[in-house]
């Protein structure tokens, strides 16, 4: 369960967001510069909000009142970037192992090979990122983010660099993954189909202010709102 109430002053507006998210997929929707990525950065601890609080499974990640601001490395928040951000100097195996090496994970930690197999990229384990297709890269990036068993997964336009077919299949895989992992996912997207297919809830951001929120959205409504 994620609870957050954050304000972040940006140079041209103040971002404001109130959130209560169970194990659902929340879609953040809005035009470029609406502050979507800043919200993800605040949740991951890469950027410090101006005020407010962030609580994940009863653990306070950030609280301006109590002067708490946990570093990204101890937040247990997974982050998936649009362009995968795989380490180019490491093989697929090393990329996935990277996070596991950072902490002394207990025995329950996942076997990276098994995880990669479940993503259908087990055979690419010794390749370097430059030898992979876009879809393969994104599967590896997903496996890397989940290998450290995060309590929240942030996905920043994860499908935008992919072709239509790969996009559709990855969308379904993410939905399936969400059911398996039972943690909140927050997805930033521009794509209406992504939002419709994946979003249990949708927040429409307009200059940092959530202008509308819904439990489930119909395609026609989305188009109206954007238009």
């Amino acid at each position, binding site marked *: 369960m994620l609870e957050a109430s954050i304000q972040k002053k940006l140079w041209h507006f103040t971002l404001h967001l109130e959130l209560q998210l169970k194990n659902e997929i929340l879609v953040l929707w809005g035009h470029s510069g609406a502050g979507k990525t800043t919200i993800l950065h605040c949740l*991951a*601890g*890469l950027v410090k909000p101006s005020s407010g609080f962030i609580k994940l499974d009863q653990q306070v990640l950030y609280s301006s009142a109590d002067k708490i601001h946990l*570093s*990204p*490395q*101890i*937040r247990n*928040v*997974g*982050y998936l*970037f649009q*362009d995968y*951000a795989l*380490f*180019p*100097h490491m093989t697929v195996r090393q990329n996935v192992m*990277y*996070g596991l090496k*950072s*902490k002394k994970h207990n025995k329950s930690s996942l076997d990276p090979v098994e995880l990669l197999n479940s993503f259908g990229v087990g055979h690419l384990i010794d390749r370097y990122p430059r030898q992979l297709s876009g879809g393969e890269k994104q599967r590896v990036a997903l496996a*890397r*983010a989940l290998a*450290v068993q995060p309590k929240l997964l942030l996905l920043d336009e994860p499908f935008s660099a992919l072709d239509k077919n790969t996009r559709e299949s990855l969308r379904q895989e993410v939905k399936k993954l969400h059911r398996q992992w039972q943690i909140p996912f927050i997805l930033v997207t521009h794509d209406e189909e992504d939002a419709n297919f994946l979003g249990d809830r949708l927040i429409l951001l307009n200059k940092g202010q959530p202008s509308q929120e819904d439990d489930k959205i119909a395609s026609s409504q989305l188009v109206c709102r954007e238009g």
Partner: protein
Amino acid sequence: MKFSKKPGDYIFQGVFWLVFISTAIFMLMLIAGLFLFGEWATFFEVLKNPEFHFAITFTLWTTLLATVFSALVAIPCGYILSRYKFPGRIIIDTILDVPIVLPPLVSGVALLIFFGPLFGETLAKWGLDVVFSSRGVVIAQCFVAAPFAIKTFKHAFDSIDTRLEKVARTLGYTPYKVFLKVTIPLTKNGLLGGLTMTWARALGEFGATAMLAGVTRLKTETLSVAIFLNMSVGDTQFALVTAIIMLMISLTLLVTFKIFTGVEVRL
């Protein structure tokens, strides 16, 4: 492409090619001149000369120390200039570049005042004399070479996607470990290229060294100082052989730099 070139086009291209080829020939002749004017018999004699031995050993250890110190300064400076935006950043960046544009003699005078009248006495109390000592040589080389290291390192840090560092943080690494495991390996070629250029700059240092450390035979005698000292007493052969050796070292460094930076471009 259609064949509709006018005579003006040929003149334009012709002039450019002419200047380009002439410059290349001039550089080649300059290098060839050094080799042709030297006598091979004296070449080996100079190589056995104790003064030459002193100069080359002294140059190697002082320049290596200067390169290491420059790197130690340039890694944090280059990283901060590359990653952080703060008021006055451009001003500080420009100040750090000053030794590049400053005539080496002026750098020497500034260093002489700093380590002489300003802090000379304090340093002397700790037994750290700088003026007219080998320490002064290292400091002068470091002063003129460090800005090259800062510039090239900053450029190397600029060249990597900062998202890789961010994702490493979310995977559980501290900023220090991210720097060691992600930033350094990804900028390795740029950093090595920068180090090579820094070393080359330190090797060629003369003006600031002469002002701060003096030109004393067998004491503060680097290869550059050796050329100056021997030319001034008319021993052209010694100076020439030393010049050829320095030329070869510089060429090797330049090729090394091109290899490192070339690899980086291809990645």
